[in-house]
């Protein structure tokens, strides 16, 4: 008789190797009332293990669509997404998404929300699951709010719970879709420090969608600039600044002004094309 393999909470909390992503020639069309819109036009992008990549662009440039395709929530019309060499065919626990609006479940309390993805993970005892949830709530600094109801939390706290919930099943990739867009500036800046720390501690591959150039320059190893109609990656900026980065430094401002300039040029060329 074999004993069934069971991982303990300590094993579950170990830092695992993050995935590398290969996005190859991905195209996606949307049918709208005014005709078909090419949201993504043969987009290719490689993301290294444990890399932090930001996708930046005007709204409607397809960056969220690309994120959803990586998540497996949408299918590309052509092209493939490979995670560690294996094609992505649907959503999965190893690529978790943190949405812009907190998609927390109001019928569960904070702890129940973080526990939700863990309950879907086999080979763990309930005690392990509780330990893991406790660990991540502490990591995002919300231990005291375990039993709070979701509606009692501020916007920033909700996103912290979302982050804990996304981290809890120990995914290899974290996909973040403008997670801080709805927060006030002060809360947001606090997040920049925290997310860098957590990223360092937990080693994840992160794909981060934003329209905030400064935010992208502060967080990303690389910033990919998207152009809309059709959605394409037009520029790539490698941010060579030491971490942890502070958003209010001159060096960072230099990067963000370069990116902003490129963004403006894209906007102008689109305007003349029309």
């Amino acid at each position, binding site marked *: 008789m074999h004993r069934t393999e069971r991982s303990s909470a300590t094993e579950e909390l170990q830092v695992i190797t993050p995935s590398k992503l290969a996005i190859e020639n991905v195209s996606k069309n949307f049918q709208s009332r005014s005709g078909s819109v090419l949201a993504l036009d043969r987009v290719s992008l490689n993301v290294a293990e444990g890399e932090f990549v930001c996708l930046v662009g005007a709204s409607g440039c397809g960056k969220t669509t690309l994120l959803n395709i990586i998540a497996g*929530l949408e299918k590309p019309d052509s092209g493939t997404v490979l995670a560690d060499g294996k094609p992505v065919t649907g959503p999965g626990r190893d690529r978790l998404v943190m949405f812009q*609006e907190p*998609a927390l*479940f109001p*019928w*569960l309390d904070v702890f129940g929300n973080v526990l939700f*993805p863990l309950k879907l993970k086999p080979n763990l005892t309930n005690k392990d699951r509780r330990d893991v949830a406790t660990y991540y709530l502490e990591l995002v600094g919300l231990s005291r709010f375990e039993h709070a109801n979701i*509606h009692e939390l501020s916007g920033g706290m909700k996103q912290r719970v979302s982050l804990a919930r996304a981290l809890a*099943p120990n995914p290899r990739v974290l996909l973040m879709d403008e997670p801080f867009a709805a927060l006030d500036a002060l809360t947001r800046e606090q997040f920049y420090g925290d997310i860098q720390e957590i990223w360092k501690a937990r080693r994840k591959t992160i794909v981060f969608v934003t329209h905030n150039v400064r935010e992208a320059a502060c967080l990303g190893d690389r910033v990919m600039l998207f152009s809309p109609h059709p959605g394409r990656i037009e520029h790539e900026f490698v941010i060579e600044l030491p971490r942890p980065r502070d958003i209010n430094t001159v060096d960072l401002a230099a990067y963000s002004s370069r990116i902003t300039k490129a963004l403006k040029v894209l906007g102008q060329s689109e305007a003349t094309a029309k």
Partner: protein
Amino acid sequence: MKRLLLSILFFVVLLFLWESMFRAKIWSPVLLPAPTQVATYLKSAAVDGTLLHATVITMRRLLTGYFVGLVLGLPLGLLTARWNLFRDTLGTMALGLQTLPSVCWVPLALLWFGQTEAAMLFVVVMGTLWSVVIATETGVRHVPPIYRRAALTMGSRRLHIWLKVILPSALPFIVSGMKQGWAFAWRSLMAAEIFVTILTGFGLGQLLHYGRELSAMDQVIAIMLVIVVIGLLADKIFFSPIERFLHRRWGTSQA
């Protein structure tokens, strides 16, 4: 506490007015008996057991029918929410039948089942079912799509999503549908019991009916009171705690 005292005071004053007007002989005692007479009837009916017996029979009919209505209504509501085929057929039918007071089913029920418990059950089920179907469907259709997407990325699939995401998310709607279903079932059962005598058991409605036949208005009013009290208790004991929980969790305003 203050509010409780206020409502007690209100009812005491009401009873006092009623009793004193009765004693002043403003109306014929046949038309409306005094509260003391009603109390006397209640006491005697409670002592000889007729009241308890009738209550048990009525509640058994009500709870059985309500339970059957729920058990049928929930899955039917999920079906109508999930597939447009069911929505256009079953959903439309549910909408239509919900507007029909279920006491209208009594003639058919008597024809089909005779003067039996089954006829009573049928009327109660018809009262419950459609409200539950419609509320479940509405609730499921109001689940924000992002919940489903979030659950998908966390590894939740088909049945798990339905049980752990869609159903709980629709709960506030389902509970209000259950409450409406309960109200409809209760009203239709009373109407059916007053209309029809079922030999296998005399419920509260039948007691009320016989009170009318005997022109015993103290009995009629006493039974009416019992019916009101049962309705209040169901609300306070069963629905209120659930609703309070929902309000607290969802953060919707507490009425």
